[in-house]
């Protein structure tokens, strides 16, 4: 922000805010390091150190191997990957269609349609009506219950609409002169030009799909169809209540449970960590998108 070299009060201020940022940063990263550390620690080392382990002396992948032996993990991983691929793809199609149509300023009824779309962000029918609708549509205990209800993503549509509106007018107008139809303008101009916005919105859809478990809890009772986050939830909460009672359990059993839980958490985070550099590149852009005025 300021380009001068801080001195006096300004220097103390810089030191002060540095300390705040440092504390916040450490508190953000330490729990993750700890979880990773425990997941890599062997049973013996955990017991020897009475569970006080920050980073293992001899990292081991034992917990991951035991987890990989569980077919439920692989099944749920497949479901998670499938929904994180199919869901965002279909969402993007719907969003691109809606955003393009609503970016045409001469469209009669445009404002009313926008109001109806924004309204869905402010008012919902509630969980049970949604459950009843899914039942009516026969989507309970089906993979598609993960996909369809997430298609009407009002926020993504609006971000995309702004982006298309802010494209240079001359580009779309030149197509008018050539007599292009809207469908052609959408496919050959708007979509290629809006790639950065599509990427941003698509990546957020991937995050939402990867992290979703609530819909599985509500609509899917068949555990074969549960995504990874749902399996992770079951692993974590199954005996949380008996956590205190675990003191009675043998050390070996307890440790098994602990490092395997942490390994599952790591697997639940990993795709997000891999996606994060791209996300970071786009999300700041995404948020700033609306505030940039011509």
């Amino acid at each position, binding site marked *: 922000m*300021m380009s001068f070299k801080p001195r006096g009060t300004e220097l103390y*201020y810089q030191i002060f805010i540095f300390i705040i*940022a440092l504390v916040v940063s450490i508190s953000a990263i330490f729990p*993750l390091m700890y979880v990773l550390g425990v997941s890599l620690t062997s049973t013996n080392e955990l017991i020897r150190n009475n569970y006080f382990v920050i980073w293992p002396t001899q990292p081991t992948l034992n917990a991951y191997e035991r987890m990989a032996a569980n077919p439920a993990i692989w099944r749920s991983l497949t479901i998670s990957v499938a929904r994180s691929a199919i869901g965002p793809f279909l969402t993007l199609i719907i969003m691109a269609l809606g955003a393009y149509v609503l970016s045409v300023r*001469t469209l009669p009824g445009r404002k009313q349609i926008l109001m109806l779309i*924004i309204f869905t962000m402010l008012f919902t029918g509630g969980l049970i009506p949604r*459950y009843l609708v899914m039942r009516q549509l026969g989507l309970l205990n089906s993979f598609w219950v993960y996909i369809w209800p997430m298609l009407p993503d009002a926020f993504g549509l609006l*971000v995309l609409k702004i982006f298309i509106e802010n494209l240079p007018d001359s580009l779309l107008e030149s197509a008018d002169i050539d007599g292009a139809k809207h469908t052609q303008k959408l496919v050959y101009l708007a979509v290629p030009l809006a790639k950065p916005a599509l990427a941003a919105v698509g990546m957020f859809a991937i995050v939402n799909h990867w*992290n979703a478990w609530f819909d599985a809890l509500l609509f899917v009772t068949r555990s074969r169809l549960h995504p990874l986050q749902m399996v992770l*939830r079951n692993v974590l909460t199954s005996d949380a209540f008996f956590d205190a009672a675990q003191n009675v359990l043998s050390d070996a059993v307890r440790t098994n449970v602990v490092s395997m839980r942490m390994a599952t958490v790591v697997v639940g985070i990993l795709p997000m960590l891999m996606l994060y550099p791209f996300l970071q590149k786009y999300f700041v852009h995404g948020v700033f998108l609306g505030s940039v005025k011509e």
Partner: protein
Amino acid sequence: MFIVSYLIRAYRANTYEHEPYIYGSVRIEEIALAKHVSGSELPSHATGGDLAEGLQQVHLGTIKTRKPIGVPLKERIRRHRELYILFIPVAIVYIVFRYWEIGLGFVAVFKEMRIGQGLWESPWVGMRNFQMIFENPNVVRTIRNTIEISLYRLFWGFAPPIILAVVFHDMVWMRFKRISQTLVYLPHFFSWVVIYGIVFALFSTGTGFVNVLLENLGFQRIEFLLSTRWFRPILIGSDIWKTMGWGSILYMAALTNVDPGLYEAAVIDGAGPLKRIRHISIPSILPVIAFVLTLTIGNILRAGGEQILIFYNEAVFEVADVIETWVVRVGLGRFQFGVGIAVGLFQSVVGLILIVIGNYISRRVAGRGIW
């Protein structure tokens, strides 16, 4: 919190509605009509110069209108037929997966639904389901818990993102700033399940880091996750941990739009860091603050059910059971559909009313509302 960032973008999206100028293509007869109606001469470039071409690009800069003037609605709709056809899938998706459930909710809430009985055969019961909300002491408890937890979230979670934004904005050590930002935004992308896993790793009684540390230091272990005293601090603390960095981006966006000259002038005039925060930074993020407050107040009957549903257990129901968790556990789990739907609609309607009121106040105070 995520919905807040959703909506702030939606809000910004909306501000574009008020742009007075439009660019578009209009037929030549419309240009003539526009001339006639506005009574003004169009700038020469507006007609595109060459009238021989059937279709012209027109810049209606001086007319300040949103639509071609003088063309009947029917004709304008006909002319945009292709766009309406393109919009059909979008409309279907919104109707089936958003509006259908709202309509169904408003019908079903006046009926008594039984297992194995369809919606249409069920008998009408008038306002009975709404009355049952306030007759059931458990539901009343969930409403109280919901409001309390929401207010605690607001109280503790409101300032951290603002402080963080100011810290990042004022920091001169750019490299550290970037690393630090990378770290604090990260937890936003984790699911509540993962956050619970992390909380469990730190706070569980048997093996949690904090408890092992407490024991090593000679203190008693604390049953953080099972105690009614610690449940809410843990809940709200982990929420702040997850959303603080992300929340700061909104304020950062407002701060980066401030003219740097203002800060430079303030420095020359001898204003210290605190004075700059008070007189430049805070006023410039006031609209964002008003916006966030409005949405938070609108969501006062939503206490983050997705988080609580995974964090709570029977030992802490007394302080943790909120409307959403009750709807899932009892409404859906034990087929008490009627009350469940009534509570859900109660949430939505109250939320909408509060947002409208909040928006009105925000317009009066900060000069800007959500819409």
